[in-house]
């Protein structure tokens, strides 16, 4: 054909999962080149960190990857605790694991629902996923008062103990969700059209994935059995028994399947944690304002990959430098390579399977 057409999958588009601007050069319908433009959600969070105390910064970490707030809070608080050698009570450790894993479940539900919607299963899987998500969101509402940005995990513990009846509610939810997972498998995973749309699309090989520092379900779908919770356990994760689902080919279907199986594993962890949670007071007793010196880097396994906080403290009440290593930022870097040579429909499918959140890419 010769002449290339430029299509702007612009900042406002039904399926770019936030404000991402993709400049696609297409030849007919085949993508020849792709240039992502970021920065539409850049709020300068790293600069803000230098002007807030350690405790004041926790709500800002909620708003990074707003679908996995508990995990963001957890990573930041662990970084501060490592920097200043603050101990965390046992009950708080267990509560942190429970909320982090439940948050992983609801984050993966959103990813699954929106991925199916991108492929054209218009709204039905999304509604089912959000109906399950609603149960957990209401639980979080009763625990910490918020539905999306929780600000629950604090430095040295958590902000409040769980109310009575939470344990039974979680047990009921686990039984209910296990039935729903069977439903998702029947409706989506082995559906002929779904397979035809997502198998062998956007194959990410192991070497490319490691070179691009891809982490999370994307890396595991490419066949690398790596999970920070198992290989460098933090908190009390070494006390629980769970598997790491791994994909075979690294295509979009594998990324979807890994997420679905991770929901099951997260439910296992929560079940074990609820069964063995110790008594005590999980509320953090650290001063609101404190000083410290040193440097620390902590990374945790977020639903989207490895989130890392690199904190530098020079004796002030604010951190001197707070660098946020966000998983979606590194994961998005491989997108131009993955969609070269695919149709526009497949480009949308690959972008959906990457499961990015612009909040943590742009910070």
């Amino acid at each position, binding site marked *: 054909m010769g002449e290339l057409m430029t299509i702007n999958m612009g900042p406002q588009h039904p399926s770019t999962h936030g404000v991402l601007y993709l400049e696609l050069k297409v030849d007919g319908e085949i993508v020849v080149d792709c240039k992502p433009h970021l920065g539409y959600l850049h709020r300068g969070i790293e600069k803000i960190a230098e002007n807030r105390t350690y405790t004041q910064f926790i709500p800002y970490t909620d708003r990074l990857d707003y679908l996995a707030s508990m995990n963001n809070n957890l990573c930041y608080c662990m970084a501060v605790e490592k920097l200043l050698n603050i101990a965390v009570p046992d009950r708080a450790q267990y509560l942190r694991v429970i909320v982090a894993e439940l948050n992983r479940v609801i984050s993966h539900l959103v990813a699954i629902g929106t991925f199916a919607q991108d492929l054209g299963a218009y709204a039905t899987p999304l509604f089912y996923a959000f109906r399950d998500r609603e149960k957990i969101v209401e639980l979080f509402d009763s625990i910490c008062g918020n539905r999306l940005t929780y600000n629950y995990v604090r430095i040295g513990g958590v902000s409040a103990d769980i109310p009575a009846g939470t344990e039974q509610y979680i047990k009921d939810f686990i039984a209910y969700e296990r039935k729903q997972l069977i439903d998702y498998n029947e409706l989506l995973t082995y559906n002929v059209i779904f397979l035809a749309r997502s198998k062998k699309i956007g194959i990410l090989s192991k070497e*490319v994935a490691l070179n*691009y520092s891809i982490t999370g379900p994307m890396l595991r779908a490419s066949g690398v059995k790596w999970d920070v919770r198992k290989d460098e356990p933090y908190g009390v994760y070494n006390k629980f028994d769970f598997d790491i689902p791994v994909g075979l080919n690294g295509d979009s279907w594998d990324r979807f399947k890994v997420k679905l199986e991770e929901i099951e594993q997260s439910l296992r962890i929560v079940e074990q944690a609820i069964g063995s949670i110790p008594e005590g007071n999980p509320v953090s007793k650290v001063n609101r304002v404190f000083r410290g010196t040193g440097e620390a880097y902590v990374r945790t396994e977020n639903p989207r990959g490895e989130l890392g906080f690199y904190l530098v403290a020079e004796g002030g009440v604010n951190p001197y430098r707070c660098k946020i290593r966000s998983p979606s930022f590194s994961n998005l870097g491989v997108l131009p390579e993955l969609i070269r040579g695919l149709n526009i429909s497949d480009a949308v499918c690959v972008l959906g399977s990457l499961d990015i959140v612009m909040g943590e890419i742009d910070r």
Partner: protein
Amino acid sequence: MQNSECFQKIKNKFPDISIEEQPNGLVIPKASLLEVAVFLKNEISFENCHCVTAVDRKDKMELVYLLYSTPNHFMLTLKTFVALDDLTVETVSGLWRSADWLERETFDLFGIKFLNHPDLRRIMNPDNWTDFPLRKDFKMEGFIPRPQSPGLKG
């Protein structure tokens, strides 16, 4: 694996580079960054460049590289200092493709130029902006004119 083991290996391979071992990581001079990086990637299997960032130390810029080696289960913090009057350093994006965007981000926020980078332009701030936000001398109060988007009139 420990910091000291890495330090020894690099010292043995490059005896005439002045490497310092600090509690928070290894400090190497800017000029030998690329060859040490090649050595780390190929010989000691640091195949994962986890993070590239910078810290503004007021009289100089500190570049921090967080490299991870999966076989050794070790995260190495490699630091190098860049003088304010010559804010350039060699790029490592030829070795680790993850450094591509991370270096662009460091350039965008601090102004450190990476030589031989395939596509060094701003990543989060508008392309035609001239200031570097994360420097300590960035003016935060008062009116800063908003950068214009190219298609707007006036």
